């Protein structure tokens, strides 16, 4: 297949962008859940 490296690069890098973005969202979700739990416990402890 001619220009295979360009087609491969476009699809690989493109999907990698979505995947990396998804990972950042998951990480932020985990942090927010932890923070929320910590604050709830703090509030209950008062």
């Amino acid at each position, binding site marked *: 297949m001619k220009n295979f490296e360009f087609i491969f690069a476009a699809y690989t*890098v493109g999907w990698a*962008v979505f995947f990396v973005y998804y990972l950042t*969202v998951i990480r932020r*979700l985990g942090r*927010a*859940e932890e923070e929320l739990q910590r604050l709830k416990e*703090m*509030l209950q402890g008062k």
Partner: protein
Amino acid sequence: MGRSRQSDAVRMGLAVLVGLLVIAGAYAIFFVAPMEASQREIQRIFYFHVGSAWTAGVAFLIVFIANIGYLSKRAPMWDRLAVSSAEVGLAFCTVVLITGPIWAKPVWGVAWVWDARLTTTAVLWLLYVGYLLLRSFLDDPARRAVASAAFGIFAFLDVPLVYFSIRIWRTQHPQPVIAGGEGSGLDPMMWRVFLFNWVALLGVMALLIWKRYRVEALLREVEELEVEIAWKEADAASRSVLAGQNN
């Protein structure tokens, strides 16, 4: 709790469906869509590049609608939807700006030219980066929501400019293939493969916005709890001062 589990199950079901659409779409791109006569194989980037561009346009349209919704109703859900959609739209716009030059290099001989279409798209990317930066600079949730909504409405003005740029000006970027008037058009099978892949990308967009919206909702809950704790601490401090004065 039950509702949350139900929501997780729906999201999981949608994720599986979108995953299957993406796989079937990739198969259609490489094994079903006919070969384009002049560009040959490299034209297969079209399905991802243009599909991502259209999806970014939809995401930015959601931002625009949510911005207007927030300014007219002042309901926090509009602000959450706007920022979630802006981030996801930016991810799709990034893909457009990466796949475009990769496609251009073997076809044009250069990866980038400062023509109207490429420049307005780069400006679009910068505008939504600016939108997210503006939000990160403002701590007060109400001010942040109003300022970013106003900026978001302004930023959206570039979307029709991107769309019409190849219709108004002569550009290195190809003239419109879809809805481009006489002499333009896609092979019917290419058109079907394109639409199928666009639906798959819209599904990816919807899932990402949904997940990102959840983050934003939790962050607002965190902000509210922080305010509540600060009030309680201030209240407890003033009570202890009063108790000290009474003693």
